[in-house]
């Protein structure tokens, strides 16, 4: 990002946040954030939400029996497709 964010209003800064965050740059050192607790808190909250979502939801596994069900369904489909 090349714009001078220090002189931006919160509204202007926040309108660029999606692109700033999405581009992967380290937004935490942005000049606007250093002087704006409100936008700092917003950014912290968004990061907290992303971290929590990954922590809570990323490692959920289906039941072990699911593969057996899929296997049976595949065999059923194959037996219909290729009747003896």
């Amino acid at each position, binding site marked *: 990002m090349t714009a001078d964010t220090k002189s931006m209003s*919160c*509204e202007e800064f*926040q309108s660029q*946040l*999606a*692109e700033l*965050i*999405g*581009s992967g740059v380290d937004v935490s050192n942005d000049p606007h954030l250093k002087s704006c*607790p*409100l*936008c700092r*808190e*917003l950014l*912290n*909250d*968004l990061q*907290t*939400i*992303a971290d*929590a*979502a*990954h922590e*809570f*939801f*990323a*490692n*959920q*596994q*289906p*039941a072990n029996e*699911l*593969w057996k*069900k*899929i*296997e049976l*369904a*595949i065999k059923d*489909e194959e037996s219909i497709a290729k009747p003896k």
Partner: protein
Amino acid sequence: MTQHSYLISTLIDTVDKRKRMPRPKSQKQTPEALSTAPVPEVESAVQLSEPAVALAPPPLSPEAEILARAQAGDHNAFSHLYSLHKRRIYSLCLRMVSNVAEAEDLTQEAFLQLHRKIATFRGDSAFSTWLHRLSINVVLMHLRKKGLPLMSLDEAMEPSYDDGPGRSFGAPDLSLTGSIDRLALERAVAALPAGYRLIFVLHDVEGFEHNEIAAMLDCSVGNSKSQLHKARLKLRDALRISLRKGGKR
């Protein structure tokens, strides 16, 4: 154009190979290791120790080899693919429908469709991207059949002016740091419009990059960034309301 045809018509995409796609470890695969029982999910990247031979075609990675065998109808290889991808497909389904039984049904349907269509995978995109695209289609068709209020992907990709989450221009009040509990977040995610929810899950839960999501949903990278940001802002609003009601601060 319907959602179904919208997704199917753009099934083959050109996204780069996934950087974080789980790959099998470089261990020798014995016949036992590729039995019909699903193998444990593995995460680390493969290190090929053999020196490259001049003019020889590059060896297939273990996953590419498994994929090729599955495409040729090898049942054990298909079971291996299931083990490699089940967690992410199930997570996607579970977050989209918020119900364990339905999520397992959808995971089953996604892998059945994979079994039917795997021979058509041409390798133009990463396999994981292709599989997710197929699974997203299964989920969206399910939501549509249930008659749930569903924002179509087309709608989700359009900028919305009347439904945007609030920005933060007032005085700071509630910080979410250290305050988010799992149940509150589950509810807030479940309450998101389907289009926002989908992008949030793909990016923040599953760890896909915006270029990969754009390829899956046939939208621009900018749209993916924008919709993710709106989803997070909506979640923030919902969680702050939940926090106030819960009196946790």
